[in-house]
């Protein structure tokens, strides 16, 4: 049992089946889909409220998604803790500025990597909120409910992703 916990990686089928069970537990115990892009809206709203309280109180979106420390927010630090435990137990925790695949193609300058990552993060969260969910909310929780919106969104995540990855690594970075 302990051997299993300290392994660097599990079969994606086993880990995936575990996430499928976890998604069911979410519906059963918390009456909500397993998803995490809403948490970022809450964190962002809480930070912004300390600077510009009136803006957050007036904003229509923060009335739909209330900035508060609740289920949807704590899942984000939860994921960080869970991944940290997993990496720590297997001895694979490592501080890295630039992933090797990026570095070998575009160089190991942290500045360039961070600029592109920030841009990616902005598009990622904007797109997630635009579509009403992310790879977990739509890709897993919505698709397993056979939601039309989720299936269309999940397919588009990969269409957009493949297009940009090909542009980056097969055209620009060649």
């Amino acid at each position, binding site marked *: 049992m302990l051997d299993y916990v300290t392994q660097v990686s599990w079969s994606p089928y086993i880990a995936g089946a575990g996430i499928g069970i976890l998604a069911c537990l979410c519906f059963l115990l918390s*009456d909500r889909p397993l998803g995490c892009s809403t948490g970022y809206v809450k964190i962002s709203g809480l930070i912004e409220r300390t600077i510009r309280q009136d803006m957050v109180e007036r904003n229509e979106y923060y009335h739909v998604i209330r900035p508060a420390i609740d289920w949807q927010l704590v899942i984000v630090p939860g994921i960080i803790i869970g*991944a940290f435990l997993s990496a720590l137990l297997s001895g694979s925790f490592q501080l890295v500025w630039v992933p090797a695949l*990026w570095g070998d193609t575009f160089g190991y300058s942290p500045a360039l990597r961070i600029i*592109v990552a920030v841009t*990616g*993060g902005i598009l990622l969260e904007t797109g997630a909120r635009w579509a009403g969910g992310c790879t977990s909310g739509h890709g897993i929780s919505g698709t397993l409910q056979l*939601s039309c919106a989720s299936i269309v969104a999940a397919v588009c995540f990969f269409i*957009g992703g493949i297009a940009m990855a090909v542009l980056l690594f097969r055209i620009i970075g060649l």
Partner: protein
Amino acid sequence: MLTALHRQTKTQIVLGLLIGIAFGFLLQKSGVTSYSVVIGQLLLTDFTVLKMMLSAVMVGMIGFHLLKRMGLVQLHVATGSVGSSLTGGIIFGLGFALLGYCPGTVAGAVGQGALDALFGGFLGMLIGAGLFARIYPVLNSGILHKGEFPAKTLPQLLQVNEWLVIIPVVALVAGFLLLLEYLGL
């Protein structure tokens, strides 16, 4: 349904944290919190992400619908639209490849020490959330409702019993995964 449990706000916060920890642990163990694995999937050279997601969908689909039959869970689906699901999905995809993580795996990558995920991705996600809150009123009175889908779920769209969709979908997904293994991908 476990309505009494659902109403206990404080217990729910603890549950959210525990579910997050389990989710992060499984994401990290499956390998999808690594930049190279995500980009490998988008370049169609490494199918770990799809294997994990489709395995979760198969198990979850059967489990969820069994629980629903027992009256223990209910559907949580929204009406999608071309303007929302398709446009948002493509924007998400572009960010997915630029960042090399998704909203869940970027948090997982932070946990395993990826500093580009913390100072790049995480920061960008918070900026993106603030940005979206500002443009939401305009989007909500326009594009988000353009071309709304006629039904919320596939069984509703096809007007058939849900198991007549679940069984062929699970069989198709299993067949696709077997094909991936057969091809050595």
